[in-house]
Structures are given as structure tokens and as C-alpha cells.
């Protein structure tokens, strides 16, 4: 049987969302940041009462570079049986955000649960949401530099100088470091003797 796999196109696709196979997982719409709020408001009036999720994707080679993805679900706001709910419609809004203007209007006034999701996008991608009541880092510590889920952020974090060893750690170390002969028992004995002689010298004479 032939495999459905296709080899990568020139290594990787620049905008995978444009090449997606016909998967029926949601109604999909791409929208500009300026129209975002009016479109979301219209969808909300249309019955998409639940904001399922809000996340971001970084496409480094594409213009605009970032996608903020809104997942909506058509959901009644009163008690309902499984038959009344049936198969609710899912809606996916993709909003391109250019690197020059990393800002979107907030939707926390429309959906309260957008609060933490927007904070997470801000924290991990560096996209700000104007009008958010409390926009600060949520996953990373407050003083963290950089936005880890960006593609240009290294996996193990930025290279940093090692913090100096605390004084007590230095004190217990042998003075001359590891002897050239390696950590043999004899070499260690010599080191210890050397250190003891040095300590005796340092002791104030009574």
C-alpha cells in the first residue's frame, strides 16, 4: 500500500496552514488584527459562546511571522442534554501578527478565560494584548529575559556565565586543584598533607 507521507518540500514548509490537507476539524478563517475584535464579537453573537483555547505559533520565515490562533465552540449557556448539543460547531480564527507590531487587542472583556491564555502568549511569544487587565508573565519567572517558545530561542536557554561558587565550596577544595597524576590515592594524600601544612602556616602564632 502506498504511504500517504509526502517528503518535505525544500526541507520545510514556510506556511503549513496554507498547505493543510482537507481535514474537517473546524471552520477556519484567517483575519487581520484590525478586524479581529469585530469578527470575534460577531461570532459570539452567532452562538460561539465558549472560547476553547488561544495560542500562538511562530513561523520564522513567514510574513507576518506569528499566528495567534483562537478556537471557538458553539455552546448553549443553559442546561442542555447531549441530544440538544449534538455535534457543536468548532471555529478557528488565525490572526497573523507581524514582528514589527507585536500587539493585538485583548478579548478578556468578551471571554473571561482569555486572561491566562493571553498572558501565556505574552510570556512565551512576546505578543502584547492591549487592554489586558493584568499582563505579566505566567509560566516563566517575572524577571526572565526572552520568550522561550519563539523558534530563535535556544532549547537549553541563552548561554550565560556560570554563577560563582559560594565561598564555603571554595574553602573545602584542595588548593592546587586536581594533581597532574590524577585522583589517585597517593596524589590525594600529598594534596592533603600540603593543605594541612598551609593551614598550620596560616594559624596565628600565640
Amino acid at each position: 500500500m502506498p504511504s500517504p507521507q509526502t517528503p518535505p518540500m525544500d526541507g520545510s514548509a514556510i506556511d503549513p496552514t496554507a498547505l493543510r490537507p482537507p481535514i474537517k476539524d473546524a471552520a477556519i478563517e484567517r483575519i487581520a488584527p484590525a478586524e479581529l475584535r469585530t469578527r470575534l464579537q460577531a461570532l459570539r453573537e452567532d452562538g460561539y459562546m465558549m472560547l476553547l483555547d488561544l495560542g500562538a505559533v511562530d513561523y520564522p520565515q513567514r510574513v507576518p511571522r506569528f499566528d495567534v490562533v483562537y478556537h471557538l465552540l458553539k455552546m448553549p449557556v443553559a442546561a442542555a442534554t447531549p441530544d440538544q448539543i449534538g455535534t457543536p460547531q468548532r471555529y478557528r480564527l488565525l490572526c497573523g501578527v507581524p514582528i514589527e507590531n507585536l500587539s493585538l487587542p485583548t478579548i478578556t472583556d468578551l471571554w473571561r478565560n482569555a486572561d491566562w491564555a493571553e498572558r501565556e502568549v505574552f510570556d512565551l511569544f512576546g505578543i502584547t494584548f492591549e487592554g489586558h487587565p493584568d499582563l505579566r508573565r505566567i509560566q516563566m519567572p517575572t524577571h526572565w529575559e526572552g520568550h522561550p517558545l519563539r523558534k530563535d530561542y535556544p532549547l537549553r536557554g541563552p548561554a550565560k556565565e556560570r554563577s560563582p561558587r559560594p565561598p564555603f565550596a571554595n574553602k573545602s577544595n584542595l588548593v592546587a586543584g586536581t594533581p597532574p597524576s590524577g585522583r589517585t590515592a597517593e596524589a590525594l594524600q600529598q594534596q592533603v598533607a600540603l593543605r594541612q601544612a598551609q593551614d598550620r602556616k596560616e594559624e596565628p602564632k600565640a
Partner: protein
Amino acid sequence: MSVGTVSSMPLEPQGSQVLAQDGNAMVLSMGPQHPSTHGVLQIMLEIEGESVVKAEPEIGYLHTGIEKSAENLFWTQAQTVIERMDYLAPESNSLCYALAVEKLLGITDRIPERAQQIRVIVAELTRIASHCVWLGTHGIDLGALSIFFYCFDLRENILDVQEAAGGARMHPNYVRIGGLQADLPDGHVERLDALLKKFPTRMRELRAILQKNPIWQDRTIDVGTVTPEQAVAWGLTGPALRASGIAYDVRKAFPYSGYENYKFDVPTRTEGDAYARFVVRLDEMEQSMRIVQQARDAMKAGPITIDDAKIAPPPKEAIALSMEALIHHFKVVSEGIRVPPGDVYQAIESPRGELGYYVVSDGNNKPFRVRTRPPSLYNLQALKGIAPGNLIADLVVMIGSLDPVFGEVDR
């Protein structure tokens, strides 16, 4: 001295201590090391006497960058770290991820029936095991100690069955892209039967200990009430949403892995309080066992992985005999599989609610982006809405009844 506002507090470990006090109002930091927060959760509380004026949960103490790690691993390797998100229900994570990748590969219809049935059994057993931990710890929070031992006994029986199938108690990595890691071992159906036989008795005991217990009812009825409007506004899913009367269950609404073939009810309550969530979860455990029974009866011998050596490596017996199979195995293990470019949103009903993965592939052998929709994150966030006006002691009940798992909240 002025009272510090909750939002100006930094995300720093502070321990349980009073941070500011002015007259009757004070700011108290509860957690992140607190036995009843079910993990590393810090809640900045503005309290007036014993009543909560404002509650601001601070998360991120368990942030391990699983989404970032997944981007740097092969599609098959990423599943291993993704399974560690919700550590109480690991199979639900790997199942959802596998389903998402299978959708991108376009092989959803080609997964063998036996694999789907075993997946359903594994997923439902995980749900019961996860609810066991929830009920045990929830009981301890409220001072009901004995329930913990009954729950963990049942959980241990389930984990034994899971271990026999997948080889590990906690993170078996049993569900794989394209099917399963291996077929069920000999005698597994008997193990399942023993569990199915024991379950109703155990369930009767759990109900007898708590459901009509007046102390339990006093502590949970009318505590943390969530109306249907609030539940939808906060994006609650799973038992928390169904306890508010909205019977949204991903297994019914968007069936996957053949859930449309099984008969089961979606337990709902309309009260929306902690007691309703408790009853809904107990009812759910019984429905899960009903599904397990049906899947067990429907199981027939057959293949357990897709017949496509470019996606699932061929079985070990074939490798010993066929050069081509050996090469395929080598390629899948050393180079990983490739997934056609595209994006997909796949959701399943995890024990905590709608667990979703928004997976993007750029055509390479590593996932380009795996965005999780963690149900615990949204369920926990609702605490901001329902905690104010309640006692601190009831806050503990609310956290327990929302059942957050911090591996998933922080990822």
C-alpha cells in the same frame, strides 16, 4: 501601612505567610507548598476575616517546557514527553496526540479495529484511575481519610492491569502513532474480568462512605456553585461543566476511536456545586466501566498497528526474516517519521475535560508546534470567579472539586 494589591505580587516563592495587613483586610499567600493545593499552586488571597475577597492563583511553578521539548524531538519521541503532561491520566495525552498526528497523516480510517478497542479500554481505565486519585485526595482535604485507601486500592488494581498491557505503571507509552506498542499479553482478558468483577463492590463502598454522609454533604453542597453561564464563560469542560447542567462530552459530540459504537450515558447534574461535581465523577466511573465491558466483549483477534512500515515500525518477528522490514525499522527509529505539512486541532475527553492539541507540521520529522489546550488550566482559572465571598476552608473544597493537575496546567 497599605494593603498590597494581589496583582502587584511577583511570581516568587513566598510560602504561606501574611504579606500585608490593614485593619481587617490582609493579603495571604497560600502555597505553593500547601498540602491541599494538589501540587505547586500558589493562591494570593485578599481576605477579610475568614472570607475571601479576591483570589488570584499563581501558576508556573511546574513549568517544564514540554511544548518546547516536543518541537525538538521526533514525532514519535515527542509522544513520550507529552504523555507526562497530565501525570494522573497519561494515556489520555498520548492518545490525543496520536489521534492528531494520525489526522495529519490521513490514516485515521486505517487504524485497525482491535487497536481502537484497546485504546478505548486503556483510556477509560485511565479515567477511573485518575478519578480515584481525585476522590482520595479530595477526601483527605476534607478530613475523610479512609476514602483514600479505598480509592488507591482500586487505582492500584487498575494500574496493575495497565502495567500488564503497557509495561509500566505510570507512563507506559502504550498508545503509539498508527496503533499500539504491542498486543495485549496472554491472560489479559482474565485480568480485565477480575477488575470488572471487583469494580461494582468497590464502587458501592465509595458511595456508601461519602455520598450520603452528612458531614461530606455539609462541606460540599452549595460550595463553589457555578451557573451554566459562568461555566461557559470560564471555558469549563468535563465533569465541571456537566455538573452545571451542560452535557457536553467530547466522546459524544466528536466521537473518536470508535466511541460512537458504545452505549453510555453522559451523567449530568444541575446544581453546579462541589457535591454535584463529586456525584458526576462517581457516575462517570460507572459509565467508564460500562464502556470497558462493551469494548472487552467486542474485541476480536487482529492487527494492532497500521500496515504501513513508513509510520509504524514492523513487528520484531518480521525484522528477523525480512531485510526490508529491518531497514524500515531502522529508518523509523533513527530518522523518525515524516508528517505532511498542515495544522489540525484534535480533542478528546480526558478525565478533566476537553484536552486538545493544535498540532502544526511543516513536513519534517519533528513537530513544528504542539499547542495544548489543557482542561486543568481553564478549570483552575475559574477559581478567580467562584472563590470570592467564600470561606478559606471552602476554597480547599473548590480546588479539590475542580481537580487540577499541575503537570498539565504548567506543562
